[in-house]
């Protein structure tokens, strides 16, 4: 059965955690010289399979061959150890070391070996140059901790490319990348597979990317392969969504200026958010959705200003009757300005605290609670059921939930508080299509209730679909254009952000 030609060949993989069967006979095979999209909803068993492939988790049953040899034998195990490189969604970089050290250090296996700094710089440079020559030239000696998230991601991909791996496993690699950077990455991947016959597994929730870069796809659903090695061109978007078991997500009407007239009209005459000092005035009314587009530098600085996390010299904001902006996140939250981050580990989730504390964290501050009241349990229950989150108990830790569900939980913090403004920083990062739809719906409901929404996304389709107004930022972090209503198209966005694909 096993095709000798496959780099990776997994057949009938099973895995259970206690009574939960995560994988029930999953097949997955990758041939050299292809970009293979691996798709599936949150909780379908995608990450478990990837962990089994990467030897992080042991499988319960099934066969797993690497380069024609079973990984249970020394030959296969060695082939896997040599030939597999993984870029995780959660970055595995060493912030205190330089870019060159980050790329080269993993290749030193003996602690007593001398670290050849020049050779390391050279190889690091050549690896980085595969992705971005400019970046390569100025970044090799910088500390990785000083880089932005997307630059760190590039370092990690460069490391994987450099390792001489034959199978490259990219787990949502574009999450931290801007549209332009993603395009460059795809070009690199296409060139690599055609020139070097390596295999690439590409995990993504973004339909457009899959179409752009992948040759074949495998879709996992409920622990088995719903589609096994099918060319992407043979499937329509609707097919893919349906095969992932998220057909209902598509039947929902897309948004964008479809608010009931009465609701939107009610807020037009009550401007809530004014931003001055960007070069042109920005003003959005209550209940409007303001999108931020572009490389992280600009949007992130503006977001930090809006939520009181850091000042931005020269820029003045006025939120309702609060003229000077906020001096601290605490002041902002007390004034009912909420913040939701897609960077859950660092800026969102309190991972050591149970679900209930996470959900009610903002409410406790807004309402200036002193005691943890008995009513909170009921509030937590109602929020969980409103979001149709299946949690074993709200006393469980958030890590018992999938990433997408955790994200809904963070948004839920603000759900019943009727915030004046909600600032979202890539809230759909690493979230599957079905959950994305849920999140869009939540945001729309809040906007209809009069909350001003500020939404930064690197996914342009998202901005086009949801926003009333979009503020574009160039690669240098400066605001470039303000687009309204029908002006918001992917072409105009690309132009505004200086990232014409």
């Amino acid at each position, binding site marked *: 059965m096993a095709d000798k030609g496959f780099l990776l060949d997994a057949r009938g993989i099973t895995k259970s955690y206690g009574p939960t069967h995560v994988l029930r006979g999953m097949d997955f095979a990758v041939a050299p010289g292809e970009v293979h999209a691996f798709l599936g909803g949150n909780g379908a068993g995608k990450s478990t399979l990837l962990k089994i492939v990467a030897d992080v988790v042991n499988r319960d049953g099934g066969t797993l061959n690497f380069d024609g040899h079973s990984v249970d034998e020394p030959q296969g195990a060695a082939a896997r150890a040599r030939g597999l490189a993984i870029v995780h969604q959660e970055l595995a970089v060493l912030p205190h070391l330089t870019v060159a050290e980050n790329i080269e250090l993993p290749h030193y296996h003996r602690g007593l070996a001398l670290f050849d700094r020049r050779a390391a710089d050279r190889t690091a440079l050549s690896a980085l140059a595969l992705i971005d020559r400019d970046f390569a030239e100025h970044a090799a000696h910088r500390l990785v901790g000083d880089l932005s998230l997307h630059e760190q991601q590039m370092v990690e991909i460069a490391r994987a490319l450099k390792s001489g791996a034959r199978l490259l496993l990219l787990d949502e690699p574009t999450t931290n990348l801007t549209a332009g950077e993603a395009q460059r990455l795809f070009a690199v991947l296409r060139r690599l597979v055609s020139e070097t016959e390596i295999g690439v597994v590409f995990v993504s929730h973004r339909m457009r990317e899959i179409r752009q870069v992948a040759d074949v796809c495998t879709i996992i659903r409920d622990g088995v392969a719903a589609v096994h090695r099918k060319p992407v061109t043979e499937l329509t978007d609707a097919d893919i969504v349906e095969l992932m078991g998220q057909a209902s997500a598509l039947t929902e009407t897309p948004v964008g200026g479809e608010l009931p007239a009465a609701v939107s009209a009610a807020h037009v005459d009550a401007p809530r958010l004014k931003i001055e000092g960007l070069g042109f005035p920005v003003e959005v009314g209550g209940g409007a959705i303001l999108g931020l587009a572009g490389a992280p530098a600009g949007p992130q600085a503006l977001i930090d200003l809006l939520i009181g*996390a850091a000042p931005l010299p020269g820029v003045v904001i006025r939120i309702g009757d609060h003229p000077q902006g906020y001096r601290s*996140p605490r002041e902002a*939250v007390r004034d009912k300005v909420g913040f939701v981050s897609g960077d859950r580990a660092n*800026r969102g989730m*309190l*991972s050591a605290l149970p679900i209930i504390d996470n959900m009610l964290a903002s409410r406790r501050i807004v309402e200036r609670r002193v*005691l943890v009241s008995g009513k909170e349990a009921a509030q937590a229950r109602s929020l969980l059921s409103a979001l149709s989150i299946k949690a074993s108990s709200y*006393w469980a830790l958030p890590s018992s939930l999938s990433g997408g569900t955790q994200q809904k939980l963070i948004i839920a913090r603000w759900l019943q508080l009727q915030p004046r403004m909600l600032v979202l920083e890539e809230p759909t990062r690493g979230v599957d299509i079905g959950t994305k739809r849920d999140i869009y719906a939540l945001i729309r409901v809040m906007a209809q209730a009069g909350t001003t929404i500020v939404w930064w996304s690197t996914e342009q389709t998202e901005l086009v679909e949801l926003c009333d107004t979009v503020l574009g930022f160039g690669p240098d972090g400066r605001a470039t254009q303000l687009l309204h209503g029908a002006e918001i198209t992917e072409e105009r966005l690309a132009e505004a952000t200086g990232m014409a694909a």
Partner: protein
Amino acid sequence: MMRIFSSYRTEIAIAVAIVVLELALGILVPNALTFGNISDIAQASAPLIIMAVGVLLVVITGGIDLSVGSIFSLTGMVTGLAMNSGYNSVLSTILGLLVGVVFGGINGFLVTFVGLAPFVVTLITYAVAASLAFIVTNGHSLPINDQNYYLLNGGTLIPGVPNFVLFCVVLVIVTEFVLRRVVAGRWVYAIGSSTNAARLLGIPVHRIRFSVYVVSGLCASFASVLSVSYISNAEGTAGEAMMLQAIAAVVIGGASLFGGTGSAFGALLGALMITVIQNGVNLIGINSFWQGSVTGLVILVAVLIDRVSKARR
């Protein structure tokens, strides 16, 4: 009920271990189970429990307080000196407690507002307070001549309950209540879980972090005045061994030095465990040099149990 069981899993395991240890000791040395010995254990563990509760709060925020032992010593010397200089016992006690507030405040200020690492800051105050403890009396230990001062420790505000037991129980219950049911208590955990996320959520990170260091210093001072009252004597080296014991107690009680977890009941049980071991080693008549090894092993076992029970979830 189930929730209580599952959220106090570690604490229950330690409580069971203490009971088992005590019963085993009872078989070897029948006197170990007498009321007198149990009350000795309570008396001996009281200062450590109080100190551990303070350290716990700091540890939950992801910090560490190495200065508590020295604050304990210095508080004793200041209180003793004040009483020997003719101040009445109430004023002297307040002066002693002020030592904890001041040093805790210095710790909190340097950690929170200057942004220095807690380990470094409390290492500094540890050294300074320890040397001040000798400087204030030139190294002499001080007898306490006020015959009634022992009442602070051994008297009874509630008939039948010695004060040291009362103080411990009240402090532990109040702390546990604050940690579980008061919003500020949840914030302590939130800061330990992710400082950055906590700040963006609008939690007053600075205020809470500063406060835990002050409370930690105050607890160490309070433990010290109780101890001084008990032994009618203040010594410059009194707290030297206690800093590591307090941290050990907190860790045995299930707190993680990375922050975000731990409970006051755990700290209480951890401190009791350490005292029970000391008591057991003495009663059986094992060379007391073994005490450290036994305590070390118990910490290892406690941490392993905690790890295994968490891995199962």
